[in-house]
């Protein structure tokens, strides 16, 4: 029939167009793979899938891993971490010596280093950077210089409520290769903290030219100067080329004037793909060469398909938080211990967490100095849990158990599953659990950290640098609504440990704190430490996973 023929003709035409389009695609799929060099492994473009977009390109204002990732390729700090570890090694500074009372740090700087704009790196530049941070004006800028604020505690003129007396005193450039940083007080966080990406060195000329300090509040958001949005200028192995916001693609190119080992690839592209499944499918389809945070469920199948899953050493902690404020029953140590005995952390780690995850014995992972190696995990013993509850007269305990939705965290890949398993454990010990899910950005942090309305909750922490104080000090250094703690003995003990400056004694003091936390206080139940991972195609080599999630791409080659 004529109409049938006409319809079939239209359909054929359509199919032809589609076929043509797919031909175009198969040409494209090799675009990423075309390398300039033959064999050898240098040159080419590396396309890496990132789960989120960076907020800006000025490390001083960077707060999350997505913003740090491109920054870490373009900038250097005075001290850096040995690849794949949290140990310190020289970067822009070749030596660093503290004064006797640890209030002064003298840095011997590397010679012959230039910024991407050609200006020289020297002691003057170092002091310019430190002074710049110290002198940041405006609440908008100060509140976003989070890591500077966390380490140095205050600014020249504090304009936020969080600011206290600044730790930084001054910086002196006695000669082009020597910078002396003077502090108002000693802190156990140094020298490790000097490796924080937020303390990267930027070109003073560029900072001034592109109004780097112009952070303003406009409408209901912040805006930045051109330095942070389009002209990041560091000393790193890669230089900034462009940020295509429509396609969500960040392009970096090799810095051929780099002072250290030059990058192996010509171009490094970060492609932002928020959906995990989409990242995996792009890897499988050949449009990216690797990506960050593959789902634990996919590790095995990815390996079978021939990809390399690179597992990072653990450097985080997940805990079941207990708030003693709302439900008086939780003030009883026996009740908290019962909760610990009731939870089957072993099964949880085996069933839900990736390979390499471990049951936590204390509130820091074993990769952090101050870890007490003699501590054993609290065993899973539901009978003992019931017994303890009975002793405390709380056989009919009811708790509000808050957990976050719409989020994954390296220490908590699937909060819903973790919650369900733990809640079921508690129920089998006779505890009645009221689930209270809240979206991560929809009030969860408000509820559990600011107002503290929960009885139990799930939260964790990824370490910033190798110092137990970064974990313990954050959790139990002062009274917080999150745990409803009022025990001055605990705070004093933590504070004392943190004040010890000698590294060995510092670690020993924290070991004791960890022991006491698990036996005397038990303010929460540490659950696990999980290793997040990266995955790359098998023709990519040289990518070294870092416990600090601080991967450097200049060692990576393709092909």
């Amino acid at each position: 029939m004529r109409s049938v023929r006409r319809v079939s003709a239209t359909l054929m035409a359509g199919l032809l167009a589609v076929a043509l389009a797919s031909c175009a695609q198969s040409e494209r799929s090799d675009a990423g793979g075309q390398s300039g060099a033959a064999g050898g492994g240098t040159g080419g473009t590396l396309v890496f899938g990132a789960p989120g977009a960076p907020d800006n390109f000025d490390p001083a204002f960077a707060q999350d891993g997505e913003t740090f990732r491109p920054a870490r390729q373009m900038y250097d700090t005075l001290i850096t971490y040995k690849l794949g570890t949290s140990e310190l090694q020289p970067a822009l500074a070749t030596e660093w010596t503290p004064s006797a009372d640890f209030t002064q740090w003298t840095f011997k700087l590397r010679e012959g280093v230039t910024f991407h704009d050609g200006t020289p790196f020297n002691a003057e530049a170092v002091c310019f950077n430190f002074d710049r941070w110290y002198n940041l004006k405006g609440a908008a800028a100060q509140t976003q210089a989070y890591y500077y604020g966390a380490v140095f505690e205050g600014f020249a003129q504090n304009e936020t409520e969080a600011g206290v007396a600044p730790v930084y005193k001054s910086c002196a450039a006695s000669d082009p290769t020597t910078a002396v940083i003077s502090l108002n007080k000693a802190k156990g966080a140094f020298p490790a903290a000097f490796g924080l990406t937020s303390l990267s060195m930027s070109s003073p000329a560029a900072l001034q030219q592109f109004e780097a300090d112009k952070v303003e509040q406009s409408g209901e958001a912040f805006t930045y100067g051109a330095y942070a949005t389009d002209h990041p200028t560091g000393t790193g192995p890669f230089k900034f080329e462009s940020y295509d916001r429509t396609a969500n693609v960040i392009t970096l190119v090799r810095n051929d004037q780099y002072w250290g080992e030059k990058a192996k690839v010509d171009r490094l592209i970060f492609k932002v793909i928020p959906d995990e499944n989409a990242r995996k499918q792009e890897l499988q389809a050949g449009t990216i060469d690797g990506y960050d945070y593959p789902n634990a469920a996919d590790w095995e199948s990815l390996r079978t398909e021939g990809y390399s899953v690179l597992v990072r050493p653990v450097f985080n902690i997940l805990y079941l938080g207990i708030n003693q404020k709302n439900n008086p029953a939780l003030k009883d140590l026996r009740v908290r211990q019962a909760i610990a005995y009731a939870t089957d952390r072993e099964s949880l780690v085996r069933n839900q967490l990736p390979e390499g995850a471990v049951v936590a014995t204390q509130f820091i992972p074993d990769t952090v100095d101050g870890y007490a190696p003699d501590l054993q995990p609290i065993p899973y013993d539901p009978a003992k849990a019931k017994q303890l509850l009975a002793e405390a007269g709380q056989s009919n305990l009811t708790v509000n158990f808050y957990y976050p939705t719409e989020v994954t965290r390296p220490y908590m890949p699937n909060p819903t599953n973790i919650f369900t398993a733990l809640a079921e454990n508690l129920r089998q010990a006779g505890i009645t659990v009221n689930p209270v899910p809240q979206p991560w950005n929809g009030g969860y942090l408000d509820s559990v950290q600011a107002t503290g309305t929960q009885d139990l909750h799930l939260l964790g922490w990824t370490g910033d640098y190798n110092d137990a104080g970064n974990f313990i000090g954050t959790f139990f250094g002062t009274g917080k609504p999150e745990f409803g703690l009022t025990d001055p003995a605990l705070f004093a003990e933590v504070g004392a440990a943190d004040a010890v400056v000698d590294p060995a004694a510092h670690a020993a003091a924290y070991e004791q704190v960890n022991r006491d936390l698990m036996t005397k206080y038990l303010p929460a139940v540490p659950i696990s430490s999980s290793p997040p991972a990266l995955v790359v195609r098998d023709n990519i080599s040289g990518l070294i996973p870092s416990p600090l999630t601080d991967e450097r791409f200049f060692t990576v080659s393709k092909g």
Partner: protein
Amino acid sequence: MLRFVVRRLLQVIPTLLLLSLLVFAWLRNLPGGPASAFLGDRATPERIAEYNRLIGLDQPIFVQYGKFLGRIATGDFGTSTKTSQPVLAEIGRAMPATIELSVAALAIAVLLGIPLGYLAAQQRGRPLDVATIIATLVGVAVPVFFLGYLLKAVFAVGLGWFPPSGRQAVGLDATNITGFAVLDGILTREWDASLDALSHLVLPAVALATIPLAVIVRITRASVLDVLGSDFVRTANSKGLTPGVIRRRHVLRNALLPVSTTIGLQVGLLLAGAVLTEKVFNWGGIGTLLADAITEKDYPRLQALLLLGALVYVLVNLLVDLSYAVIDPRVRLS
């Protein structure tokens, strides 16, 4: 006629104002907010409070709404709390993506749907017709997001015929003029860019087109059946006109009236389907902006998007009503 149009347009404004006030008040009464999304893992209560104070979220709602209206009057729809980019610019960048996707999906639905519906009506009761009915019923029932994943798994990952997500291959460096990737490639004669954009468009467009396609097929079939059995067709037949003439002059023209209304209504459905499809295919259009804004509680973006959505839909409906008035004289006179 002109008065009709102007009257309808004026009615839009109070509706939008009311809607904006409602949206504004709702959002700010909710727990949480943009703070935790912006501050990330290091969001302590003090920092959240500081952030809210800086952004102005601690002021009374009417003050905030007043400032909001004031800014809109100057054309400033605010800056996204997450990306610090002007919201209008973000929407402007994302719009062409969604429009391109919707147009492609609509094109598939219409170009395939009408002929299929007509065929089914002609072959009424025979295997083709029955198969079509069942297919359309299933098509309406399949969740778009699931279909999207299936298509990706089979055609992109499994067979490798199409790219799994995004609008263009990385590193292609296509010139951007209108924001419509396929069109831009043609305008600048970068044929490979056009073809590449087209290949990225296929899977999401097919996923998105399923429901409108099913609906259009059904409506066309029903409408054609209606007309085929009507008196004037019988008259034309008995007059001795050839089937082709009858088809062109009488059947199609009359049958397509309700179909065109449906097409207009489908535009709304496309917007909704786009939200889900864009998530699955990482498309970077309005749907993605909306989904992210909801998760991150990005108030400026949410406000702008919801208002925009309402405006667009109202305008489209107005256009459909107008076209109906143009085509059907009875409507004009009512």
